[in-house]
Protein backbone atom coordinates (compact mmCIF):
# COMPACT_ATOMS: atom_id res chain seq x y z
CA UNK A 1 0.00 0.00 0.00
CA UNK A 2 1.21 3.46 -0.87
CA UNK A 3 -0.09 5.41 2.12
CA UNK A 4 -0.12 8.93 0.75
CA UNK A 5 -1.87 8.20 -2.53
CA UNK A 6 -4.04 5.49 -1.00
CA UNK A 7 -2.98 3.13 -3.81
CA UNK A 8 -3.22 -0.59 -3.21
CA UNK A 9 -1.19 -2.87 -5.46
CA UNK A 10 -1.04 -6.64 -5.65
CA UNK A 11 2.54 -7.53 -6.49
CA UNK A 12 4.39 -10.73 -7.36
CA UNK A 13 7.53 -11.98 -5.61
CA UNK A 14 10.01 -10.13 -7.76
CA UNK A 15 8.35 -6.74 -7.22
CA UNK A 16 7.98 -7.53 -3.53
CA UNK A 17 11.72 -8.12 -3.29
CA UNK A 18 12.66 -5.14 -5.45
CA UNK A 19 10.64 -2.59 -3.49
CA UNK A 20 12.85 -2.32 -0.37
CA UNK A 21 15.83 -1.49 -2.59
CA UNK A 22 13.88 1.13 -4.48
CA UNK A 23 12.72 2.63 -1.22
CA UNK A 24 16.37 3.01 -0.22
CA UNK A 25 16.95 4.64 -3.62
CA UNK A 26 19.49 2.05 -4.70
CA UNK A 27 20.57 2.03 -8.34
CA UNK A 28 19.41 -0.44 -10.96
CA UNK A 29 22.87 -2.02 -11.07
CA UNK A 30 22.92 -2.51 -7.31
CA UNK A 31 19.48 -4.11 -7.36
CA UNK A 32 20.37 -6.43 -10.25
CA UNK A 33 23.44 -7.51 -8.35
CA UNK A 34 21.65 -7.96 -5.03
CA UNK A 35 18.90 -10.14 -6.51
CA UNK A 36 21.03 -11.98 -9.08
CA UNK A 37 20.68 -15.30 -7.29
CA UNK A 38 16.91 -15.10 -7.11
CA UNK A 39 15.67 -13.77 -10.45
CA UNK A 40 16.75 -13.43 -14.08
CA UNK A 41 18.01 -9.91 -14.94
CA UNK A 42 15.22 -9.41 -17.50
CA UNK A 43 12.63 -10.17 -14.87
CA UNK A 44 14.12 -7.69 -12.40
CA UNK A 45 14.29 -5.03 -15.10
CA UNK A 46 10.63 -5.57 -15.97
CA UNK A 47 9.68 -5.20 -12.34
CA UNK A 48 11.73 -2.03 -12.02
CA UNK A 49 10.09 -0.63 -15.11
CA UNK A 50 6.59 -1.28 -13.74
CA UNK A 51 7.48 0.31 -10.39
CA UNK A 52 8.84 3.31 -12.22
CA UNK A 53 5.58 3.62 -14.17
CA UNK A 54 3.60 3.67 -10.93
CA UNK A 55 5.91 6.26 -9.47
CA UNK A 56 5.40 8.46 -12.50
CA UNK A 57 1.65 8.03 -12.17
CA UNK A 58 1.75 9.15 -8.53
CA UNK A 59 0.83 5.74 -7.16
CA UNK A 60 4.08 4.69 -5.50
CA UNK A 61 6.48 6.40 -3.09
CA UNK A 62 4.29 9.49 -3.07
CA UNK A 63 5.10 12.35 -0.74
CA UNK A 64 2.94 13.46 2.13
CA UNK A 65 1.49 16.69 0.75
CA UNK A 66 -1.17 16.95 3.45
CA UNK A 67 0.82 17.86 6.52
CA UNK A 68 1.76 21.22 5.00
CA UNK A 69 -1.90 21.94 4.40
CA UNK A 70 -2.89 21.15 7.95
CA UNK A 71 -3.05 24.76 9.14
CA UNK A 72 -5.50 25.63 6.41
CA UNK A 73 -7.39 22.50 7.38
CA UNK A 74 -7.58 23.54 11.03
CA UNK A 75 -9.02 26.89 10.04
CA UNK A 76 -11.70 25.31 7.88
CA UNK A 77 -15.24 26.52 8.41
CA UNK A 78 -17.30 23.75 9.98
CA UNK A 79 -21.03 23.27 10.26
CA UNK A 80 -23.08 20.90 12.36
CA UNK A 81 -24.40 18.12 10.17
CA UNK A 82 -25.33 15.31 12.52
CA UNK A 83 -26.94 14.86 15.89
CA UNK A 84 -27.20 11.85 18.11
CA UNK A 85 -30.42 12.37 20.03
CA UNK A 86 -30.49 10.57 23.36
CA UNK A 87 -34.18 10.12 23.15
CA UNK A 88 -34.30 7.93 26.27
CA UNK A 89 -31.82 7.65 29.09
CA UNK A 90 -33.44 4.48 30.19
CA UNK A 91 -33.28 0.91 29.01
CA UNK A 92 -35.25 -2.31 29.34
CA UNK A 93 -32.09 -4.43 29.18
CA UNK A 94 -29.10 -4.51 31.52
CA UNK A 95 -26.22 -5.25 29.14
CA UNK A 96 -23.03 -5.87 31.05
CA UNK A 97 -20.76 -3.82 28.77
CA UNK A 98 -23.02 -0.79 28.28
CA UNK A 99 -21.04 2.45 28.24
CA UNK A 100 -24.33 4.16 28.99
CA UNK A 101 -24.66 2.24 32.29
CA UNK A 102 -28.03 0.68 31.47
CA UNK A 103 -29.00 3.87 29.71
CA UNK A 104 -28.37 6.30 32.54
CA UNK A 105 -25.00 7.76 31.46
CA UNK A 106 -23.71 8.54 34.94
CA UNK A 107 -26.90 10.53 35.47
CA UNK A 108 -30.59 10.11 35.99
CA UNK A 109 -33.23 8.26 34.05
CA UNK A 110 -34.97 10.62 31.66
CA UNK A 111 -36.91 10.76 28.41
CA UNK A 112 -36.42 13.55 25.88
CA UNK A 113 -39.49 15.72 25.49
CA UNK A 114 -40.86 16.68 22.08
CA UNK A 115 -40.01 20.33 22.87
CA UNK A 116 -36.33 19.59 23.54
CA UNK A 117 -36.11 17.39 20.42
CA UNK A 118 -37.70 20.10 18.30
CA UNK A 119 -35.21 22.68 19.53
CA UNK A 120 -32.37 20.26 18.75
CA UNK A 121 -33.59 19.90 15.15
CA UNK A 122 -33.97 23.69 14.90
CA UNK A 123 -30.39 24.08 16.16
CA UNK A 124 -29.17 21.58 13.57
CA UNK A 125 -30.92 23.36 10.70
CA UNK A 126 -29.70 26.77 11.86
CA UNK A 127 -26.08 25.62 12.22
CA UNK A 128 -25.80 23.46 9.10
CA UNK A 129 -24.89 26.23 6.64
CA UNK A 130 -25.33 25.13 3.05
CA UNK A 131 -25.05 21.44 3.88
CA UNK A 132 -28.20 19.75 2.63
CA UNK A 133 -28.06 16.24 4.10
CA UNK A 134 -28.60 16.29 7.84
CA UNK A 135 -28.33 13.16 9.96
CA UNK A 136 -30.23 12.46 13.12
CA UNK A 137 -29.76 9.23 15.04
CA UNK A 138 -32.33 8.23 17.63
CA UNK A 139 -30.19 6.66 20.30
CA UNK A 140 -30.42 5.80 23.95
CA UNK A 141 -30.65 3.98 26.26
CA UNK A 142 -33.43 2.42 24.28
CA UNK A 143 -35.21 4.89 21.97
CA UNK A 144 -38.33 2.74 21.59
CA UNK A 145 -39.08 3.55 25.25
CA UNK A 146 -39.94 7.04 23.97
CA UNK A 147 -41.39 6.03 20.60
CA UNK A 148 -44.11 8.65 20.29
CA UNK A 149 -41.53 11.43 20.56
CA UNK A 150 -39.40 9.75 17.86
CA UNK A 151 -42.41 9.72 15.52
CA UNK A 152 -43.34 13.30 16.33
CA UNK A 153 -39.78 14.50 15.73
CA UNK A 154 -39.61 12.72 12.38
CA UNK A 155 -42.85 14.47 11.39
CA UNK A 156 -41.43 17.81 12.53
CA UNK A 157 -38.19 17.18 10.61
CA UNK A 158 -40.10 16.32 7.43
CA UNK A 159 -42.07 19.54 7.72
CA UNK A 160 -38.96 21.67 8.37
CA UNK A 161 -36.78 20.12 5.66
CA UNK A 162 -39.14 21.42 2.99
CA UNK A 163 -39.06 24.94 4.40
CA UNK A 164 -35.25 25.04 4.69
CA UNK A 165 -34.28 22.93 1.66
CA UNK A 166 -32.69 20.22 3.77
CA UNK A 167 -32.87 16.45 3.66
CA UNK A 168 -33.07 14.64 6.99
CA UNK A 169 -31.62 11.16 7.18
CA UNK A 170 -33.04 9.58 10.30
CA UNK A 171 -31.57 6.46 11.84
CA UNK A 172 -32.51 4.39 14.87
CA UNK A 173 -30.51 2.09 17.15
CA UNK A 174 -32.60 -0.43 19.07
CA UNK A 175 -32.26 -3.52 21.24
CA UNK A 176 -35.46 -4.90 19.71
CA UNK A 177 -37.38 -5.55 22.94
CA UNK A 178 -40.24 -3.19 22.02
CA UNK A 179 -39.99 -3.69 18.27
CA UNK A 180 -43.36 -4.45 16.64
CA UNK A 181 -45.01 -4.25 13.22
CA UNK A 182 -46.00 -0.63 13.65
CA UNK A 183 -42.40 0.39 14.51
CA UNK A 184 -41.05 -1.61 11.56
CA UNK A 185 -43.50 -0.07 9.10
CA UNK A 186 -42.70 3.43 10.33
CA UNK A 187 -38.94 2.82 10.16
CA UNK A 188 -39.19 1.34 6.67
CA UNK A 189 -40.88 4.54 5.57
CA UNK A 190 -38.72 7.04 7.42
CA UNK A 191 -35.38 5.64 8.58
CA UNK A 192 -32.39 5.64 6.25
CA UNK A 193 -30.71 3.02 8.42
CA UNK A 194 -31.53 0.99 11.52
CA UNK A 195 -29.03 -0.61 13.87
CA UNK A 196 -30.30 -3.76 15.56
CA UNK A 197 -28.31 -4.86 18.57
CA UNK A 198 -27.58 -8.59 18.73
CA UNK A 199 -24.28 -10.18 19.71
CA UNK A 200 -24.41 -13.48 17.82
CA UNK A 201 -24.87 -16.96 19.26
CA UNK A 202 -27.65 -17.31 21.82
CA UNK A 203 -25.39 -18.12 24.78
CA UNK A 204 -23.05 -15.21 23.96
CA UNK A 205 -25.91 -12.77 23.48
CA UNK A 206 -27.86 -13.84 26.54
CA UNK A 207 -24.84 -13.65 28.84
CA UNK A 208 -24.02 -10.05 27.90
CA UNK A 209 -27.51 -8.74 27.05
CA UNK A 210 -29.92 -9.90 29.76
CA UNK A 211 -33.07 -8.26 31.06
CA UNK A 212 -32.72 -6.58 34.43
CA UNK A 213 -33.83 -9.75 36.21
CA UNK A 214 -31.20 -11.81 34.40
CA UNK A 215 -33.16 -13.61 31.68
CA UNK A 216 -31.58 -13.50 28.23
CA UNK A 217 -33.17 -11.43 25.43
CA UNK A 218 -32.14 -13.49 22.38
CA UNK A 219 -35.34 -15.50 21.91
CA UNK A 220 -37.50 -12.40 22.10
CA UNK A 221 -35.59 -10.20 19.70
CA UNK A 222 -34.24 -12.60 17.07
CA UNK A 223 -37.50 -13.34 15.20
CA UNK A 224 -38.30 -9.63 15.16
CA UNK A 225 -34.88 -8.72 13.76
CA UNK A 226 -35.19 -11.43 11.10
CA UNK A 227 -38.55 -10.07 10.04
CA UNK A 228 -37.29 -6.47 10.12
CA UNK A 229 -34.22 -7.25 7.98
CA UNK A 230 -36.37 -9.06 5.41
CA UNK A 231 -38.87 -6.21 5.32
CA UNK A 232 -35.96 -3.86 4.48
CA UNK A 233 -34.93 -6.23 1.67
CA UNK A 234 -31.72 -7.09 3.54
CA UNK A 235 -30.41 -3.59 3.04
CA UNK A 236 -30.07 -0.31 4.95
CA UNK A 237 -29.73 -1.93 8.34
CA UNK A 238 -27.06 -3.55 10.48
CA UNK A 239 -27.34 -6.30 12.99
CA UNK A 240 -24.75 -5.00 15.36
CA UNK A 241 -22.98 -6.92 18.08
CA UNK A 242 -20.15 -6.43 20.50
CA UNK A 243 -17.53 -9.06 21.23
CA UNK A 244 -15.68 -9.26 24.52
CA UNK A 245 -13.04 -11.40 26.21
CA UNK A 246 -15.79 -13.99 26.72
CA UNK A 247 -16.13 -14.66 23.00
CA UNK A 248 -12.72 -14.23 21.43
CA UNK A 249 -14.00 -16.74 18.87
CA UNK A 250 -16.34 -14.00 17.65
CA UNK A 251 -16.05 -15.06 14.00
CA UNK A 252 -18.48 -17.81 15.02
CA UNK A 253 -20.92 -15.12 16.12
CA UNK A 254 -20.60 -13.25 12.85
CA UNK A 255 -21.09 -16.48 10.92
CA UNK A 256 -24.03 -17.41 13.13
CA UNK A 257 -25.72 -14.15 12.14
CA UNK A 258 -24.85 -14.81 8.50
CA UNK A 259 -26.26 -18.35 8.77
CA UNK A 260 -29.50 -16.86 10.06
CA UNK A 261 -29.73 -14.96 6.78
CA UNK A 262 -28.58 -11.49 7.84
CA UNK A 263 -26.64 -9.74 5.08
CA UNK A 264 -25.49 -6.57 6.85
CA UNK A 265 -23.47 -7.46 9.90
CA UNK A 266 -21.31 -5.52 12.28
CA UNK A 267 -19.67 -7.17 15.29
CA UNK A 268 -17.21 -4.91 17.05
CA UNK A 269 -14.68 -5.15 19.85
CA UNK A 270 -15.85 -3.97 23.26
CA UNK A 271 -14.14 -0.87 24.57
CA UNK A 272 -13.88 -1.13 28.33
CA UNK A 273 -11.63 -0.20 31.19
CA UNK A 274 -8.99 -2.88 31.84
CA UNK A 275 -10.42 -3.76 35.26
CA UNK A 276 -13.62 -5.11 33.71
CA UNK A 277 -13.49 -8.90 33.45
CA UNK A 278 -14.89 -8.81 29.90
CA UNK A 279 -12.43 -6.16 28.67
CA UNK A 280 -10.06 -7.06 25.85
CA UNK A 281 -6.44 -7.26 26.96
CA UNK A 282 -3.23 -6.82 25.07
CA UNK A 283 -2.55 -10.55 25.36
CA UNK A 284 -5.83 -11.24 23.48
CA UNK A 285 -4.67 -9.41 20.34
CA UNK A 286 -3.06 -12.41 18.56
CA UNK A 287 -6.19 -14.52 19.07
CA UNK A 288 -8.44 -11.71 17.82
CA UNK A 289 -6.23 -11.18 14.76
CA UNK A 290 -6.40 -14.91 13.96
CA UNK A 291 -10.14 -14.72 14.27
CA UNK A 292 -10.32 -11.79 11.83
CA UNK A 293 -8.24 -13.89 9.40
CA UNK A 294 -10.59 -16.85 9.83
CA UNK A 295 -13.57 -14.62 9.18
CA UNK A 296 -11.99 -12.99 6.12
CA UNK A 297 -11.20 -16.37 4.55
CA UNK A 298 -14.71 -17.65 5.21
CA UNK A 299 -16.19 -14.49 3.72
CA UNK A 300 -14.19 -14.96 0.52
CA UNK A 301 -15.34 -18.58 0.35
CA UNK A 302 -18.99 -17.64 0.86
CA UNK A 303 -18.75 -14.82 -1.65
CA UNK A 304 -17.48 -17.26 -4.27
CA UNK A 305 -20.34 -19.60 -3.43
CA UNK A 306 -22.83 -16.80 -3.99
CA UNK A 307 -23.81 -16.46 -0.34
CA UNK A 308 -21.68 -13.50 0.65
CA UNK A 309 -22.54 -10.90 3.27
CA UNK A 310 -21.19 -7.53 4.38
CA UNK A 311 -19.12 -7.19 7.50
CA UNK A 312 -19.01 -3.51 8.45
CA UNK A 313 -15.44 -3.47 9.73
CA UNK A 314 -14.10 -5.13 6.57
CA UNK A 315 -15.81 -2.71 4.24
CA UNK A 316 -13.35 -0.57 2.35
CA UNK A 317 -13.98 1.60 -0.64
CA UNK A 318 -10.87 1.65 -2.81
CA UNK A 319 -12.48 3.21 -5.84
CA UNK A 320 -14.78 5.87 -4.46
CA UNK A 321 -13.75 6.33 -0.84
CA UNK A 322 -13.75 9.57 1.05
CA UNK A 323 -11.56 12.53 0.11
CA UNK A 324 -8.52 13.54 2.12
CA UNK A 325 -10.46 16.24 3.96
CA UNK A 326 -12.82 13.65 5.35
CA UNK A 327 -9.93 11.38 6.22
CA UNK A 328 -8.20 14.16 8.11
CA UNK A 329 -11.27 15.29 9.99
CA UNK A 330 -12.35 11.83 11.14
CA UNK A 331 -15.70 11.28 12.75
CA UNK A 332 -16.42 14.98 13.27
CA UNK A 333 -17.21 14.63 16.97
CA UNK A 334 -17.46 17.97 18.75
CA UNK A 335 -17.68 19.88 15.49
CA UNK A 336 -19.91 18.33 12.82
CA UNK A 337 -21.43 15.78 15.15
CA UNK A 338 -22.94 16.40 18.59
CA UNK A 339 -24.86 14.32 21.09
CA UNK A 340 -27.94 15.78 22.77
CA UNK A 341 -29.10 14.56 26.20
CA UNK A 342 -32.79 14.15 27.08
CA UNK A 343 -32.73 17.55 28.79
CA UNK A 344 -31.05 19.24 25.81
CA UNK A 345 -27.35 19.44 26.76
CA UNK A 346 -24.72 19.12 24.02
CA UNK A 347 -21.67 16.86 24.24
CA UNK A 348 -18.99 16.15 21.58
CA UNK A 349 -20.45 12.67 21.02
CA UNK A 350 -22.59 10.00 22.67
CA UNK A 351 -19.57 8.53 24.44
CA UNK A 352 -18.75 11.79 26.21
CA UNK A 353 -22.26 12.23 27.61
CA UNK A 354 -22.07 12.55 31.38
CA UNK A 355 -18.41 13.69 31.36
CA UNK A 356 -19.10 17.15 32.72
CA UNK A 357 -15.88 18.79 31.49
CA UNK A 358 -17.11 18.12 27.94
CA UNK A 359 -20.48 19.82 28.33
CA UNK A 360 -20.60 22.12 25.29
CA UNK A 361 -23.90 23.98 25.59
CA UNK A 362 -27.56 23.25 25.17
CA UNK A 363 -30.49 23.54 22.77
CA UNK A 364 -31.64 26.83 24.33
CA UNK A 365 -28.34 28.72 24.20
CA UNK A 366 -26.36 26.87 21.53
CA UNK A 367 -22.61 26.24 21.87
CA UNK A 368 -21.32 27.83 25.08
CA UNK A 369 -17.79 26.47 25.11
CA UNK A 370 -16.08 27.28 21.81
CA UNK A 371 -12.76 26.14 23.31
CA UNK A 372 -14.01 22.53 23.46
CA UNK A 373 -15.19 22.79 19.87
CA UNK A 374 -11.78 24.19 18.86
CA UNK A 375 -9.98 21.37 20.63
CA UNK A 376 -11.97 18.80 18.65
CA UNK A 377 -11.58 20.72 15.43
CA UNK A 378 -7.79 20.66 15.80
CA UNK A 379 -7.75 16.96 16.55
CA UNK A 380 -6.47 15.16 13.43
CA UNK A 381 -3.99 12.48 12.40
CA UNK A 382 -1.10 14.94 12.39
CA UNK A 383 -1.87 16.02 15.95
CA UNK A 384 -1.28 12.46 17.11
CA UNK A 385 2.27 11.25 17.52
CA UNK A 386 1.25 7.57 17.32
CA UNK A 387 -0.40 8.04 13.93
CA UNK A 388 2.44 9.70 12.07
CA UNK A 389 4.03 6.56 10.68
CA UNK A 390 0.98 4.31 10.70
CA UNK A 391 -0.15 2.95 7.34
CA UNK A 392 -3.75 2.99 8.51
CA UNK A 393 -3.92 6.67 9.40
CA UNK A 394 -6.10 7.62 6.44
CA UNK A 395 -8.56 4.82 7.17
CA UNK A 396 -9.29 5.45 10.84
CA UNK A 397 -8.39 9.17 10.79
CA UNK A 398 -6.60 8.90 14.08
CA UNK A 399 -9.25 6.78 15.76
CA UNK A 400 -11.99 7.50 18.23
CA UNK A 401 -11.51 10.58 20.42
CA UNK A 402 -13.61 9.09 23.21
CA UNK A 403 -11.50 5.93 23.31
CA UNK A 404 -8.37 8.06 23.46
CA UNK A 405 -9.86 10.07 26.31
CA UNK A 406 -10.96 6.98 28.22
CA UNK A 407 -7.49 5.44 28.17
CA UNK A 408 -5.14 8.44 28.15
CA UNK A 409 -7.20 11.43 29.33
CA UNK A 410 -6.33 13.20 26.08
CA UNK A 411 -8.24 13.27 22.81
CA UNK A 412 -4.95 13.57 20.90
CA UNK A 413 -3.67 10.15 21.86
CA UNK A 414 -4.85 6.76 20.59
CA UNK A 415 -6.32 3.63 22.17
CA UNK A 416 -3.52 1.14 21.51
CA UNK A 417 -5.48 -2.13 21.40
CA UNK A 418 -7.97 -0.43 19.10
CA UNK A 419 -5.12 0.61 16.78
CA UNK A 420 -3.75 -2.93 16.55
CA UNK A 421 -7.17 -4.29 15.68
CA UNK A 422 -7.89 -1.50 13.22
CA UNK A 423 -4.67 -2.25 11.33
CA UNK A 424 -5.54 -5.93 11.24
CA UNK A 425 -9.02 -5.20 9.90
CA UNK A 426 -7.67 -3.01 7.13
CA UNK A 427 -5.24 -5.78 6.19
CA UNK A 428 -8.12 -8.26 6.05
CA UNK A 429 -10.31 -5.86 4.08
CA UNK A 430 -7.57 -5.40 1.48
CA UNK A 431 -6.87 -9.13 1.45
CA UNK A 432 -10.54 -9.77 0.61
CA UNK A 433 -10.46 -7.20 -2.20
CA UNK A 434 -7.22 -8.69 -3.54
CA UNK A 435 -8.57 -12.25 -3.47
CA UNK A 436 -11.74 -11.24 -5.28
CA UNK A 437 -9.80 -9.18 -7.83
CA UNK A 438 -7.49 -12.15 -8.50
CA UNK A 439 -10.50 -14.38 -9.00
CA UNK A 440 -12.05 -11.89 -11.40
CA UNK A 441 -8.81 -11.71 -13.36
CA UNK A 442 -8.73 -15.50 -13.67
CA UNK A 443 -12.27 -15.68 -14.99
Amino acid at each position, binding site marked *: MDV*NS*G*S*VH*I*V*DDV*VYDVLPYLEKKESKEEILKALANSYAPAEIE*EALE*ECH*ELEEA*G*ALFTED*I*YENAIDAFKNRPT*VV*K*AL*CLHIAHDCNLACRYC*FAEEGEYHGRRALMSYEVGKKALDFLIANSGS*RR*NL*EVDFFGGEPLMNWQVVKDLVAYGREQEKIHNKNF*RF*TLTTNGVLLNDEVMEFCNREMA*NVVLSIDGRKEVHDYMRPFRKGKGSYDLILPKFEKFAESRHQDKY*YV*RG*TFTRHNLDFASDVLHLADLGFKQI*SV*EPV*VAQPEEEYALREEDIPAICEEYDRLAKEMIKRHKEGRGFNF*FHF*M*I*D*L*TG*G*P*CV*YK*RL*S*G*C*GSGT*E*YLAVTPWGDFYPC*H*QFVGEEQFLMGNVEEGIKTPQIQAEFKNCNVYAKEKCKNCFAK*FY*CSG*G*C*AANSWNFHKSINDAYDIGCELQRKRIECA*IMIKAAL*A*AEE*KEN
Partner: protein
Amino acid sequence: MKHIQTLNTKSLQNTVKKGGCGECQTSCQSACKTSCTVGNQSCESNK
Protein backbone atom coordinates in the same frame (compact mmCIF):
# COMPACT_ATOMS: atom_id res chain seq x y z
CA MET B 1 1.28 -4.76 -16.14
CA LYS B 2 2.70 -8.22 -15.69
CA HIS B 3 3.96 -8.03 -12.13
CA ILE B 4 1.59 -5.56 -10.51
CA GLN B 5 -2.18 -5.30 -10.30
CA THR B 6 -3.56 -2.06 -8.90
CA LEU B 7 -6.83 -2.33 -7.01
CA ASN B 8 -7.92 1.27 -6.67
CA THR B 9 -8.68 3.88 -9.23
CA LYS B 10 -8.86 6.98 -7.08
CA SER B 11 -5.76 8.80 -5.89
CA LEU B 12 -6.08 10.52 -2.55
CA GLN B 13 -3.79 13.28 -3.73
CA ASN B 14 -6.20 14.23 -6.47
CA THR B 15 -8.94 14.77 -3.90
CA VAL B 16 -6.92 17.61 -2.34
CA LYS B 17 -7.37 19.74 -5.44
CA LYS B 18 -11.14 19.38 -5.41
CA GLY B 19 -11.61 20.12 -1.72
CA GLY B 20 -14.17 18.48 0.53
CA CYS B 21 -17.88 19.13 -0.03
CA GLY B 22 -18.80 17.85 3.44
CA GLU B 23 -21.96 16.09 2.29
CA CYS B 24 -20.71 12.65 3.30
CA GLN B 25 -22.16 10.66 6.14
CA THR B 26 -20.87 11.17 9.67
CA SER B 27 -19.10 7.90 10.39
CA CYS B 28 -20.59 7.19 13.81
CA GLN B 29 -24.09 7.44 12.37
CA SER B 30 -23.76 4.23 10.38
CA ALA B 31 -23.20 1.35 12.75
CA CYS B 32 -20.17 1.69 14.86
CA LYS B 33 -20.61 4.15 17.74
CA THR B 34 -17.42 2.86 19.36
CA SER B 35 -14.68 3.09 16.75
CA CYS B 36 -13.72 5.46 14.00
CA THR B 37 -14.41 3.94 10.61
CA VAL B 38 -13.84 6.56 7.98
CA GLY B 39 -12.12 4.56 5.24
CA ASN B 40 -15.24 2.59 4.46
CA GLN B 41 -17.47 5.60 3.92
CA SER B 42 -18.57 6.50 0.43
CA CYS B 43 -17.96 9.84 -1.23
CA GLU B 44 -21.30 11.60 -1.61
CA SER B 45 -20.15 13.66 -4.57
CA ASN B 46 -19.45 10.48 -6.59
CA LYS B 47 -23.08 9.43 -6.40
